[in-house]
């Protein structure tokens, strides 16, 4: 079946511009996570959506970052006024209720801020 998809796969933007990154989770998965990964480094948790509960935003690095999840499915991560330090791969993952710790990751969006 279809896995987690993310778009775009690559995004180059100028410093100060806003960007939107999209994640389509696996159908029926109730949990959705966003992570950031810089080159050669670990996974930095950003935000977590679980069903209809209020999202856990504790990992967002600044108020320039926000995310929405519409209809319990598609999610959009928005970065306003991008900075060079925002350059990274942004990964989305989803999981089901029954397999809550088995996350399925998308291929990521590579963001480059020039």
């Amino acid at each position, binding site marked *: 079946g279809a896995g987690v998809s993310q778009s775009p796969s690559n995004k180059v933007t100028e410093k100060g511009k806003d960007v939107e990154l999209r994640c389509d989770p696996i159908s029926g998965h109730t949990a959705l996570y966003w992570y950031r990964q810089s080159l050669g*480094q*670990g*996974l930095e948790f950003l935000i977590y959506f679980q069903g209809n509960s209020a999202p856990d935003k504790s990992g967002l690095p600044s108020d320039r970052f926000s995310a929405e999840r519409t209809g319990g499915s598609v999610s959009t991560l928005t970065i306003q006024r991008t900075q060079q330090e925002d350059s990274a791969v942004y*990964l989305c*993952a989803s999981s089901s209720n029954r397999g*809550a*710790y088995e*996350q399925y990751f998308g*291929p990521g969006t590579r963001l480059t801020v020039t």
Partner: protein
Amino acid sequence: GESVGLHLPTLSVQEGDNSIINCAYSNSASDYFIWYKQESGKGPQFIIDIRSNMDKRQGQRVTVLLNKTVKHLSLQIAATQPGDSAVYFCAEFPGANSKLTFGKGITLSVRP
């Protein structure tokens, strides 16, 4: 994030040898502990999990060991192959409706 600015440690092993990747976890109340593998250019992929009431679980060529006394988790890979070269992350899961938390990650490099 906890890993920002820090490059991942690397474990180098000879092809055919056994690999042991170690992880220290923080939450003694976690219900499940999990290992993920991330190959270059891809997202992490689930390998194996172990419940907190177990101390050992075996999969295909992999074994996970859990020592709750010292909050230590390890992943053993038998007869390491070039395809095992990747970054390995441990993760802990407190339970239903909780957030999965990843550790820092270790790079496994297999020498031919």
